[in-house]
C-alpha cells in the first residue's frame, strides 16, 4: 500500500528539509573546527588537536561548554529584542537555503529498504523549486540584516549598537552589488530558477559563468564576503575597536546561535557561488559524467574549495577601514556591475536571444 501522491510529496519534502538542515548544522560545527585548524597552520600553530583524533571532536566539546554556560542578559537590555535577535538571525539564514539545489538530480535505487513508491524515483535535494528562486534568495538575504540590527540595538551597549549600525550600513551597501552581479547570469540563462542557471553552464568549463561573466564573478565574491561579514569585511565585529560588535553581550547558546547563523550564511553563499558561477554539479569536461554520485563529488569539491577560500582570506588579509569599505562598495563594485550588465545585455540583444 503506498500513500497518496500528496502525502508522498509531503514525506519527501520533510525528508529533504531534515536532510538539508541536519547536514548544514553538522557542516557548521565541522567548519568551526576546520577553520580553527587551518588558520592555526597558516600561522604556524597547531590549533585544537586534543579532543578526539586530530581534535575533530572539538566542536562537540565547544557545544557542551556553551550549553552549560550561564545565560547573561544585561539589566538594561530590551528583553524581547534581545531574546528574538538570535532566532531571527538563524531563521533567515535557514530560509535562504530552501531554494538552493544541492547536487544533481539522481535516481533512487530500485531495491533495498526504501518503500515501494520511492524506488527508482528521480529526486533532487532542493527543498522548494520556485519560479523566482534567485529573487527569493535576495529577499531573504535582505531580511538577514534584522537579526544583527536587533542584536546590536537591544543589548543597550554602545559597542553592540555601533556594530549593529555598521553591519546594517555594510549589508545594504553590498546587497546592491550582490544583486547586480546576478543580473547578467539571469539574462544569459533566461530564468530565475537556480537549477536552470546551473544547466545553462553544461559542457566545457570555459562556459561556466565564472569565465563568461568574470567581472560579475569578481563582484559577487567581494560582495558575498562583505554580506557574510568575513575578513576583510568584518567591521561589524572588529574586536580591536568594538569588543565583539553586535554579539558583545551574548553568551551561552544565544551566542552559539548567532555564530551558527554566520557560518550558515557563509555556506549558503559558497553553495550559491558554485551553482551560479562554477557550473554547479557539471564536471566542466564533456566526457566526464555529471549525473548521480559523480555530480555530488564535483559539486562538493567546488563548495569545499570556496569555503576554503573564505578561511584562506581570513588568514591572509587585514581589515578594511570604514571609508574604504564604503568606497569599494559604492564607487567600485556597483559601477563595475552596472557597466557589465550593459555589456551583457548588448551581447544578449545582438545574439538575438
Amino acid at each position, binding site marked *: 500500500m503506498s500513500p497518496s501522491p500528496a502525502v508522498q510529496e509531503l514525506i519527501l519534502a520533510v525528508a529533504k528539509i531534515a536532510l538539508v538542515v541536519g547536514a548544514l548544522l553538522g557542516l557548521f560545527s565541522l567548519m568551526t573546527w576546520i577553520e580553527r585548524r587551518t588558520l592555526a597552520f597558516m600561522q604556524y600553530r597547531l590549533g585544537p588537536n586534543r579532543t578526539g583524533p586530530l581534535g575533530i571532536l572539538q566542536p562537540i566539546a565547544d557545544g557542551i561548554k556553551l550549553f552549560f554556560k550561564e545565560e547573561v542578559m544585561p539589566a538594561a537590555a*530590551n528583553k524581547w*529584542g534581545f531574546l528574538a535577535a538570535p532566532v531571527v538571525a538563524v531563521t533567515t539564514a535557514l530560509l535562504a537555503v530552501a531554494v538552493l539545489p544541492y547536487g544533481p538530480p539522481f535516481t533512487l535505487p530500485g531495491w533495498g529498504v526504501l518503500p515501494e513508491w520511492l524506488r527508482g524515483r528521480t529526486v533532487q535535494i532542493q527543498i522548494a523549486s*520556485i*519560479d*523566482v528562486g534567485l*529573487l*527569493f534568495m*535576495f*529577499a*531573504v*538575504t*535582505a*531580511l538577514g*540584516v*534584522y537579526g544583527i*540590527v*536587533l542584536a*546590536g*540595538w537591544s543589548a543597550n551597549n554602545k559597542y553592540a*549598537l555601533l556594530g*549593529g*549600525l555598521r553591519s*546594517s*550600513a555594510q*549589508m*545594504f551597501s553590498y*546587497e546592491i552589488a550582490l544583486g547586480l552581479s546576478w543580473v547578467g547570469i539571469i539574462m544569459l540563462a533566461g530564468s*530565475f530558477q537556480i537549477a536552470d542557471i546551473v544547466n545553462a553552464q553544461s559542457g566545457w568549463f570555459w562556459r561556466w559563468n565564472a569565465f563568461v561573466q568574470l567581472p560579475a564573478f569578481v563582484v559577487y565574491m567581494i560582495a558575498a564576503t562583505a554580506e557574510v561579514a568575513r575578513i576583510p569585511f568584518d567591521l561589524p565585529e572588529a574586536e580591536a575597536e568594538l569588543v565583539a560588535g553586535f554579539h558583545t553581550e551574548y553568551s551561552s547558546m544565544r551566542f552559539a546561535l548567532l555564530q551558527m547563523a554566520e557560518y550558515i550564511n557563509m555556506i549558503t553563499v559558497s553553495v550559491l557561488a558554485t551553482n551560479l558561477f562554477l557550473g554547479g554539479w557539471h564536471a566542466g569536461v564533456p566526457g566526464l559524467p555529471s549525473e548521480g554520485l559523480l555530480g555530488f563529488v564535483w559539486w562538493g569539491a567546488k563548495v569545499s574549495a570556496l569555503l576554503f577560500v573564505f578561511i584562506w582570506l581570513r588568514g591572509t588579509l587585514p581589515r578594511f577601514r570604514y571609508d574604504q569599505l564604503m568606497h569599494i562598495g559604492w564607487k567600485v563594485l556597483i559601477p563595475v556591475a552596472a557597466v557589465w550588465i550593459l555589456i551583457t545585455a548588448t551581447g544578449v540583444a545582438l545574439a538575438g536571444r
Partner: protein
Amino acid sequence: MDAILFYVFAAIAVVSAVVVIAQKNPMYSAFALIVTLCSLSVIFGLLGSPFIAVLQVIVYAGAIMVLFLFVLMLLDVKREEDSPARGGRTLRGIALALVTLLVLQAGAVLLRSERGAAASFDASTRRMAEILFSPHFLYAFEATSILILAALVGAVALAKKEL
C-alpha cells in the same frame, strides 16, 4: 488551504499594522511594520504572483525598512512625548482612516464586475515583464524610473551643503 493561509496572514498583517500606530516605542513600530510587509508578501504569493511577493520583501522589508531602522538607531528616540493635542489628533486620524476605507470599498464595489478577471489573471514573471515593457506601459515605466532618479539626485543636492 490557501483560504486558511490567507486568513492567518491577513490577521497577522492587520494586527501588526495596528501595533505600528499603537506603539509608542518607534523601534517596535518599525519591527511591526516589517511583519506587516512580510505578511502582505505572503498574500501576494497566495494570489499567484511570487514575483510581486518577492519584490515586496526586497524593496520594502529589505531596503526601505533597514534605512528606517538605521535612522532610528542613530537618533536613539526613547519615547514619543504626549502632546496636549493628542485626543484631537486621534479623532482626526480615525476619521481619515474611515474615509479611506469607504473610498476603497466603493472602488471595490464599482470594480466588482472585473474581479473574476483579476482572480484568473496570469501574474507570472514573464507575463509581468511583457506587460511592463509593452508599448502601452513602456514610456510610463521608463519615465517613472527617471523621476525616481531625479528625486534621488534632488535629495542628495538638498542634503549636502557643498558637493
